[in-house]
């Protein structure tokens, strides 16, 4: 069964293209601009744009870490340093990539994280 993945990004061509790419890489991709139930997915991918608030991204990621304890989380942002602390604390569940990132870096980050590691509980 293909792992369920939520792709959270502003609607547009870029999101559609990334959805196709991730589906090709073997994920069952669901797109949205805001995610109400993170626990329903094995992987969460948040794509920030140049106008995204770093504080809002950090808040969102913190809530996902708490709520979706087994999910793999990948964030692409123009402000990666705002997430440095949380990224190092949850390095095996959370990957933060500086934008613009290659789509395959997102896939590699999704496959590299290990949600079963107890240090990420």
């Amino acid at each position, binding site marked *: 069964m293909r792992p369920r993945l939520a792709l959270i*990004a502003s609607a547009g061509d*870029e999101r559609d*293209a*990334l959805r196709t*790419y991730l589906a*090709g*890489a*073997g994920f069952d991709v669901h797109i949205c601009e805001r995610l109400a139930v993170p626990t329903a997915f094995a992987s969460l991918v948040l*794509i*920030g*744009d*140049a*106008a995204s608030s770093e504080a809002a991204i950090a808040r969102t990621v913190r809530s996902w870490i708490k709520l979706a304890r087994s999910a793999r989380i990948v964030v*692409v*942002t*123009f*402000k*990666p*340093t705002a997430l440095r602390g949380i990224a190092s604390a949850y390095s095996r569940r959370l990957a933060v990539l*500086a*934008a*613009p*990132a*290659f*789509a*395959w870096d*997102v896939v*590699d980050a999704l*496959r590299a994280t290990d949600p079963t590691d107890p240090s990420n509980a």
Partner: protein
Amino acid sequence: MSRRAAPPSVVLAPTTASPAMRGFDRVLRAVSAKDVTVTFVGESGSGKEVMARRLHDLSSRRSGPFVPINCAAIPEALFESELFGHERGAFTGATERGRGKVESADRGTLFLDEVAEMPMSLQAKLLRFLETHRFMRVGGTEKLEVDVRVVLATLRPLEDEVRVGRFRADLYYRIQGIVLTVPPLRDRRRDIPALIDAFVAQLAAIHDCAPIRLTRSARAALFAYDWPGNVRQLKNAIEFATILRPGKAVRVHDLPPGLVPSSTASANGERFAVDLDQPLANMVDRIIEHVIALEGGSLPHAASRLGVSLRTLQRRRRA
């Protein structure tokens, strides 16, 4: 300085604004559909791994893993274990069974970068693996089979390595079927503006600062330069400017000192200009990059020409 469009957050494919890259991508698409071994030849920093990844993404194996291995970075004693894995107790310190890269790449693509640096003893085992797709872990007795597409990369044509006895002829003939030459950046200058924009945005994000603003003349200088170190060198130049002029205008004289007009920095000649007002470290770096370019991107050959060990050269470039 003109106002530029907001950069994308995610890039799905390498830049193909230039005719050279468009043509290359066309070939890549055709080759990706066939499950054959492919060898990329290209200068240092030209993006061979990016192209290998693109090949994987275009292929029917894209839902499987892409496993890269740099043959120049692994000590000879560990190479076989790294590639084929090992059984428990196979050697001192092997307290558990270890999976090799070949096993990790099952149903995907195994990318062997700088394959010319692979030890001769391992080349025979790689050849056998390419022919049968079967292998044994170090210390093992059982033959294992995997479904892997092997993609290779080399800085220079492998026939030269065969001629001087550093690469097995039988392996060369096995993998020479489809050889794709990645165009150097100087042959695809139309890709430079898009690459600059992507690196400016990405490096500002990494260094937590506002993006630099390149003046028209600075852009022109970056466009005109010959880039012997290719895309990697361009990225380093943007990083240099980002660190020194965060959020500010970057003029020609703010760019790294090595970026002189191509007439003096050309890799075609044996001479090049050195600015005596520059720190010694910068001059040394320029000499190193120039010699690497003269040697077609080959670090071992450049090290030999400079009279230093390969390790010294690699350490200096990383510094």
